């Protein structure tokens, strides 16, 4: 602004190159963010690329040349090795039962609770909601020892799917998502159904749930990644290899048997790819569902 008397050369230049200059200036302004974002994306994605590369190497190559695909050094043997060590179909099935069980109970009980907290009036509702908020601030790890004493030593649910699922039976974020969704629906919808004499259960199953498909999909995705990726709790509950979810079996493989394998990293990384793929694919397919508002409530509790 101080050089207001001398802008002529630039202006002249601009005039001469009108079709080119504005885009070039705009693209220069865009260049820095784009460069930063690209560096960021490399930092975030490289380990995943390297995971796949490492999982396919016959001879482990951790040098710089190993970061590039080498057709002469490709193999699927690592997948066979990890399957022999931890029985991939079985551990995947266990992960599926653990995750599927938690999803099922979360959907059934979460929809009921979310509907009641949003649309029904009963004494003590506010208390239930506040208790839910308060209790969610508790770190799960604080409860790890008492839960272990109760579930594994008290009810003898060690090495059972039920013991694995219990602490994940109702995902609080899902209850939140359902409550928020049902609150947004117009009041008249529910009132006219009530006037027609429909029971609340009927209103929930025939009107609210069919409308709630987007909320249900969000809740499914958010609930899925919890148990699928979880290590600590199923690790405490399962000692038998044939009941361990993949994350637990792979972690035990990393900490115990890896040293005995000829190519431990190849097998570890092949297992890591199998563990990562379902969650990553689910995320990529439904990534528009990962909205900041839902995730914010997930952290706040």
């Amino acid at each position, binding site marked *: 602004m101080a050089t207001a008397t001398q802008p002529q050369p630039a202006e002249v230049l601009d005039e001469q190159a009108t079709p080119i200059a504005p885009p070039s200036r705009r693209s220069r302004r865009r260049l820095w963010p784009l460069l930063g974002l690209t560096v*960021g994306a490399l930092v975030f994605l490289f380990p995943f690329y390297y995971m796949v590369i490492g999982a396919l190497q016959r001879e482990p190559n951790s040098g710089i040349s190993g970061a590039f695909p080498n057709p002469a050094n490709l193999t699927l043997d690592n997948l066979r090795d990890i399957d022999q060590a931890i029985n991939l179909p079985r551990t995947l099935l266990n992960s599926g039962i653990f995750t599927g069980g938690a999803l099922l109970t979360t959907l059934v009980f979460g929809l009921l609770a979310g509907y*009641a907290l949003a649309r029904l009036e009963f004494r003590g509702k506010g208390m239930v909601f506040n208790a839910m908020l308060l209790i969610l601030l508790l*770190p*799960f790890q604080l409860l790890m020892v008492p839960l272990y004493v109760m579930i594994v030593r008290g009810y003898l649910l060690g090495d059972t799917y039920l013991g694995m699922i219990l602490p994940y039976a109702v995902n609080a974020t899902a209850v939140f998502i359902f409550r928020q969704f049902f609150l947004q629906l117009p009041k008249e919808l529910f009132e006219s159904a009530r006037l027609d004499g429909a029971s609340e259960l009927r209103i929930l199953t025939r009107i609210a749930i069919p409308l709630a498909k987007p909320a249900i999909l969000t809740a499914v995705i958010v609930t899925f*990644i919890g148990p699928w990726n979880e290590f600590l709790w199923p690790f405490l509950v399962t000692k038998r290899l044939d009941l361990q979810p993949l*994350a637990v079996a792979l*972690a035990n493989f990393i900490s115990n048997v890896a040293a005995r394998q000829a190519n431990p990293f190849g097998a*570890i990384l092949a297992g890591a790819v199998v563990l990562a793929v379902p*969650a990553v694919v689910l995320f990529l397919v439904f990534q528009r569902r990962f909205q900041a508002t839902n995730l914010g409530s997930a952290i706040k509790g």
Partner: protein
Amino acid sequence: MAASAATTSRPPLARRLLGRHPVGYLFVAPYVVFLVAIFAYPLGFAVYMSFHDYFFAAPGAIVERPFVGLDNFTTALADPVFRRAMLNVVIFIAINVPLTVFVGLVLATALNAAIPFRTFFRASYFIPYVTASVAVIGVWLWLFNSDGLVNAILGPLAPEPSWLVNSSWAMPIIALFATWKQLGLYVLLYLAALQNIPEELYEAAEVDGAGPVRRFTAVTVPGVRPTTTLVVIAATITGANFFTEPYLLTGRGGPAGASVSPVLLIYTQGIEQGKAGYAAAIGILLALGVMAVSLVNRYVLERS
């Protein structure tokens, strides 16, 4: 007239006692049972255990578990391993919070500009967050191994001993790993916060002669303050809860306990060695610490 007005204004007794939809109790009952059985009761049980010499005995055996007052707490506070674990939480937060706030805000600001491939960038930052820790730790182990790619690139600059077995590097690498894994979430939260800052504020600042840096510090930073509070609180909770990283990445809190975490200590003391009362006391001290940090944060960051 007056009588009918009285009857309509006074709903039946059951409705006054229970509310308009008593069926709501049936609907929330499973969730309430879950909250009580999985959260409220174990919380009380944890407090009880922490004041007793609670240890594991053979199933069915009747053993005495005497009340020991604050013994478990004083033992923990005097234990150098516990102190090291608490120090590690502080190191974790000291690395994680500034890095998350700075890089998260920079990436979110860049994403907020009109740029191509936005969906791709958003997705790529988020992928570590949705992936199992166990899977990505496998890659980090390979990357930071003594003959791993990171040391191959660094050559003579590589630390000796290597990252994960070096007592001054083990903890920072864990903090770096956690920051990398969680950052995508905070980028999204910051992006949402940035989009809520009204454009007029930037225009007004520009009219007042504020440059880009001044606009950033005077408009952007205060505008995203609630998200920053959230980042600090979430980082504190993550810092108090990390377990998989020291268990797998640095081989059970190694080298020589340099990366031990409170939860790893709860696991080894409470579950492996069966000293459940002692482990419960560690858990309660940890929870009190997290609550204190959260309250201070709320107070300091939300005062303005």
